[in-house]
């Protein structure tokens, strides 16, 4: 048994760095490791070469090397991650944590399923995710409001000129609170006054009036047309949910791709795979909802350009990476039970090039089959080098 470690006197900065680096190591390995580094610094301090504090930085590389290679941390983590049930459990946990710890789900639900979200609209706001914003003058707004009392109920006008959002109706105030107008206003005020400056109009379609009818009437109001600008009625829900259809379609396509590309050969394996795909993509969708709920609005009611790009690019990029990862992971799994393939052994004769050439065979622990790959372990990742053997010769006795 090694003697107890008594730290020799070395500078405190070096002690701190060694302690931080040593924290990476398991307890069983840390004492010997500390003893070696402390001794080197002690002798260095008492030698002609003097102190070399920067050398303590090398302790991090040393500890990390030991963690990865000697103690197999990466291997253990990888093994755990390849477990069928643990991966699903981790995904469920992450999904639950995302739902509970963030507000995106709630906000998105409120917006998507708000009883008024498709009937309350902003007038004269361009569609989101387009550059520029057409504005409406108070005179034009008044003309429209007076003309269309039959189809719409005006909740009020809003302005952000004075860092406050002013609206004429409490319902509109609630909506503006929910959609997080930008710039971050100091208050959302409900007040009735004569609007003289720039304002937008927020309204609600009257009962029995469809959006198409209101838009048709809007199109007939010549006073609102300025050149090529055509004011639009934009339901509030659409501002947030514009990327919903393309993003959902992309996620669905990627899910199908993952399912087909994995080439599973049984219903059981399909269920394991489908659960992974569904949970992974649900996680992306959840993160996207959170992102969408946090997207601010500009003064003109559109979503800023960078957020628009993010709302499209993030979910598709993340889901694509996940789909590729799932496809790659599935290659190293049994096509019948979806367990991770293990026990790699060299088979064949490496000297032969055409027939029975050498390769590595990965075996399913339950004996459902084996994956024969090229002789380099990494080749399991490349499809052209791998061949699934449903009933590999000579392995039945190993697994039954």
């Amino acid at each position, binding site marked *: 048994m090694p003697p107890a470690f*008594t730290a*020799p006197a070395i500078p405190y900065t070096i002690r701190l760095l060694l302690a931080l680096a040593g924290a990476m190591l398991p307890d069983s390995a840390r004492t010997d490791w500390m*003893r070696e580094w402390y*001794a080197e610094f002690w*002798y260095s301090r008492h030698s002609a070469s003097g102190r070399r504090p920067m*050398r303590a*930085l*090398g302790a991090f*590389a*040393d500890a990390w090397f030991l963690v990865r290679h000697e103690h197999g941390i990466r291997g253990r983590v990888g093994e755990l991650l390849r477990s069928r049930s643990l991966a699903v459990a981790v995904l469920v946990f992450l999904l639950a944590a995302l739902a509970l710890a963030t507000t995106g789900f709630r906000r998105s639900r409120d917006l998507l399923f708000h009883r008024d979200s498709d009937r309350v609209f902003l007038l004269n706001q361009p569609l989101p995710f387009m550059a520029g914003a057409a504005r409406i003058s108070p005179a034009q707004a008044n003309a429209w409001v007076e003309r269309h009392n039959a189809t719409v109920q005006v909740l009020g006008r809003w302005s952000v000129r004075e860092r406050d959002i002013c609206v004429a109706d409490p319902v509109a105030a609630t909506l503006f609170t929910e959609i997080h107008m930008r710039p971050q206003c100091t208050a959302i005020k409900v007040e009735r006054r004569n609007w003289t400056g720039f304002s937008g109009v927020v309204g609600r379609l009257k009962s029995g009036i469809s959006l198409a009818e209101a838009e048709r009437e809007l199109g007939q109001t010549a006073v609102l047309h300025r050149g090529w600008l055509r004011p639009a009625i934009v339901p509030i829900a659409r501002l947030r949910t514009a990327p919903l259809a393309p993003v959902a379609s992309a996620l669905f396509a990627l899910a199908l791709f993952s399912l087909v590309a994995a080439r599973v050969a049984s219903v059981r394996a399909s269920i394991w795979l489908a659960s992974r795909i569904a949970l992974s993509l649900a996680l992306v969708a959840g993160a996207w909802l959170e992102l969408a709920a946090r997207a601010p609005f500009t003064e003109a009611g559109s979503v800023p350009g960078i957020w628009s790009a993010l709302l499209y690019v993030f979910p598709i990029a993340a889901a694509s990476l996940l789909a590729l990862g799932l496809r790659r992971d599935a290659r190293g799994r049994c096509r019948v039970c979806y367990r991770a393939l293990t026990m790699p052994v060299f088979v064949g004769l490496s000297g032969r090039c055409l027939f029975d050439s050498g390769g590595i065979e990965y075996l399913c622990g339950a004996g459902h089959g084996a994956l024969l790959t090229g002789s380099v372990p990494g080749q399991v990742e490349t499809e052209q080098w791998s061949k699934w053997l449903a009933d590999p010769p000579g392995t039945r006795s190993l697994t039954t």
Partner: protein
Amino acid sequence: MPERFNLTYTSGLILHAVDAGLSYGFDIIDHTGLSSGTVYPALRRLESGQWIESVWDHKNADKSGGPPRKYYRLTRLGREHLAKLRARYPLLEKVAD
């Protein structure tokens, strides 16, 4: 089973230093001019490949009054590989001396 790894120039420098009697980690760093972040992981790798072995030096510690220090020495396998490395890198001895 010893780990297989490449016969690199850095491995050669370190093995050569150990063979020359520079057996402590910091002595190897001083001699080779390599950083501690390079030398120590390389020493671990060489040790796991059984090219070198480490021993705690208690005798010198008692004499100097300092803590025991770990030193490294070549194994038979290490000596064989060092010979190969010297053949592959003829300038190794000149650079390292």
